[in-house]
C-alpha cells in the first residue's frame, strides 16, 4: 500500500461529474428562487437569510462543479492484479482498498443517463460483506475489466 495504483479512470469522468454537479446546483437554485419569492410576497423572512442562501448556492455550485471533479479525478486510481484489486479514491480522506480476487462474489457494470451521455460506465465489485466501485470507466474498458475480474475470481472459492 505504499505506492498508489497506476490505472486512471476516463478523462470524461470530469465532464460527467461536472454535469451532475450542475444538475444538483439546479436544486439549490430552486430553493434560492423560492426564498426570494417568499421574501417578496410575505415580509417575515429577513433579507440576510435570502443573501445567505444565494451565497451558499453559488459557493456550492463553484466548489462541486469546478474544483472537486478535477481533484477527484486526479485521486481516482485503480489497478487489477491477478490476485487482487487495488483502488484509491477520496479528495479529503484518501482511501486505499485491497480486495482479494478469491473474495470477489460478483462484478457488475452500471450506467446512468449522465454516464451514458459520455459513453462511460461504473464497475461494481461485490464481496460477501462489502461493495466497491470504480466509477466512470469507458464502456469497453469497463466490460473488459468486468470479464477479466470475473475470470480471475472464478478460482475455487472456499466457503464465504
Amino acid at each position, binding site marked *: 500500500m505504499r505506492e498508489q495504483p497506476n490505472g486512471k479512470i476516463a478523462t470524461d469522468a470530469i465532464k460527467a461529474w461536472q454535469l451532475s454537479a450542475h444538475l444538483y446546483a439546479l436544486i439549490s437554485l430552486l430553493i434560492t428562487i423560492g426564498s426570494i419569492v417568499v421574501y417578496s410576497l410575505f415580509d417575515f423572512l429577513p433579507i440576510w437569510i435570502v443573501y445567505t442562501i444565494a451565497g451558499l448556492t453559488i459557493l456550492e455550485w463553484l466548489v462541486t462543479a469546478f474544483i472537486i471533479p478535477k481533484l477527484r479525478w486526479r485521486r481516482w486510481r485503480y489497478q487489477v492484479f491477478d490476485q*487482487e484489486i487495488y483502488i484509491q479514491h477520496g479528495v479529503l480522506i*484518501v482511501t486505499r*482498498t485491497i480486495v*482479494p480476487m*478469491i473474495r470477489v462474489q460478483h462484478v457488475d457494470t452500471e450506467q446512468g443517463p449522465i454516464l451514458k451521455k459520455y459513453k462511460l460506465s461504473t464497475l461494481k465489485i461485490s464481496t460477501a460483506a*462489502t461493495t466497491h466501485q470504480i466509477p466512470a470507466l469507458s464502456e469497453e474498458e469497463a466490460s473488459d475489466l468486468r470479464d477479466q475480474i470475473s475470470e480471475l475470481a472464478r478460482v475455487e472459492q*472456499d466457503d464465504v
Partner: protein
Amino acid sequence: MMSKPKRLHPAAMIFHIIQTLKQSILGFLPVAIAFISNGGLFYLMIAIPIVVVLIILFSFLSWLRFTYRLEEDQLRIERGIFIRKKRTISKHRIQSIDLSQNIIHRIFGLTKLEIETAGNDSSTDAGLSAVTMADGQMLHNELKYKKHVSEAASEESSEEVKTEPEEKNEANLPQRKITVKALLITGSTSASFGILIGIFGFAFSQVETFIPDRFYDETARWVLSLGLQIIIILCLIVLLYLWLLSILYSVIKDWNFTITRYEKELFITRGLLEKKQTTIPLKRIQAVGIKESPLHQLFGFIRVYVEIASGDTKNNQEMNTIIFPLLRKKEFGAFLATFLPEYHYSVGNLIRLPRKALPYYLFRSIDLLLLAVIVVGIFFSPYIWIPVILMIITGIYGWAAFKSAGYAIDEQQITVQTRRFSKDTVFIPQRRIQALQRKQHILHRKQSLATIDMAILNKASGRHFVIKELRVTDSNQIADWYSSRKES
C-alpha cells in the same frame, strides 16, 4: 426415512394461537380501550369471543394444512390455508439445525426445529414449531452430515435421548459447562441490569396513566411525607430487586451453558425454562472475539463470542454468538486451544498506537460535549459543571480507547484490539477478511498516521474492524500481510 407427509404435533396450534395473540394484541388494545371509554363494552364482549374463535379456527386450519416430509436429501414443507406454499430445502444447503424447547414443549415432550440456510433471506429458512422429540432428533440426524447419523444411531439405544438430547456427547469430546458461581457472577455484573432499569422505568410510565389521579396524589403525598432517608431506602430496594431479577434472568438464560467441540462444529446448549441448542459449523465462523466490560476487566473476566456468517437476523438477536458467557482471562488461552485450536491467543505482543494518535481519540470522545460546555457556559454558566464532568468521563474513555487499541500479526491471523465501552479483542484469520481499506485525511498524511478498516462477514451484512490512527509503517505492515503481492 419417511416419505409420507406428516403434520406437526397438535400442540403447534397452541403456539400459533399464542403467536397470533401476541402479534394482534398491540393492534387490538387501543381499539378495545376506545370501545370501553365510549361505553361500547357490550359490543366488545361480543367481539372478543368471535375474534378468539376465529384465531383458533385459523390456527387449526394452518395446522391442518401444514405438512412436512423427508424425501431423499430434501425436506419438503407444504403450508398455507388459501395460498399453498411449497418449499423444498436441500440437505446440502442447510447451514444449521437447532432444536429448542420451551415450557410447553417440555410438558408434551416436544421440540421446535429450526433450519437455517445460507443467504441473507431469512424467508428461505424453515421452522417446525412443534414435533415430537423423536421426530425432531430423527430429522436433525437425517439432515445432518453422515457422521452425525452414526453418532445418533448409537445414542438412540441409550434412551436418554428423548429428554436430554445434549447428553449425547461422548465423554472424550472437549466440553465445558458453566459453573453456578460463574453464572451468578455473569448475572450480577451484566449489562442487562441497566436494560431492566430501563424497562422498569418504561413500564412505570405506561402504568402511571392508568392509576386514578386521587390514588396517585395520595400515594405521592404519603411518599413525600416519609422523608428523604426512607425514599432513598425505597429506591435502593427497588434497585436491589431489579439487580436480583437480572441475575435470575441470566441464570434462566444461561443455565447449564455447555459448549462441546465436535470435529467440524461447536455445539452449545443452554437455558433453564427454554432449552436451546445451537450448532455452529466451524467453517461458518469468521472470527473469534473476547469482550471485557470495565467491571469484568476489573476482576479479570471475559466473555467469548464468535462472528458467524449467516442470514439469520430475525428475532433481533445479538449480532454475534456467545460461546461462553464468563471465563477468567488467564483461562482463555487454554479454552481457545481446546475448543478452537485453529485460532491462537496472542495478545502479549500487541503493537500499540503512537502517542500522536492520542489527541484524535480525546477529541472524538469529547467533541459534542465540548460544544455543550461552550453553549452551557455562555447561556447557563452556573450549571457548567454538569457537561464538564461528563466531558471528563468521556475523555477518560477516549484515553482508555487509545490505550486499548492495537494489533498483532501472527502468521495467518491478525489480532485486533479496540474499545468502545467494553474492550474487544478479536482474532481474525487472513482469509476471512473480505477487503482491507486504509484511510488518511490531510492531517493524517502530515503526521504519517493511517486508519485501517477490515471487513468480515457476519450475521448482518458485515462487520468492520477499524483501528484508527496507526503509524503509516504499521498500516503498511498490515497491508503487506494481507496482500498477496509483496511490495518491498
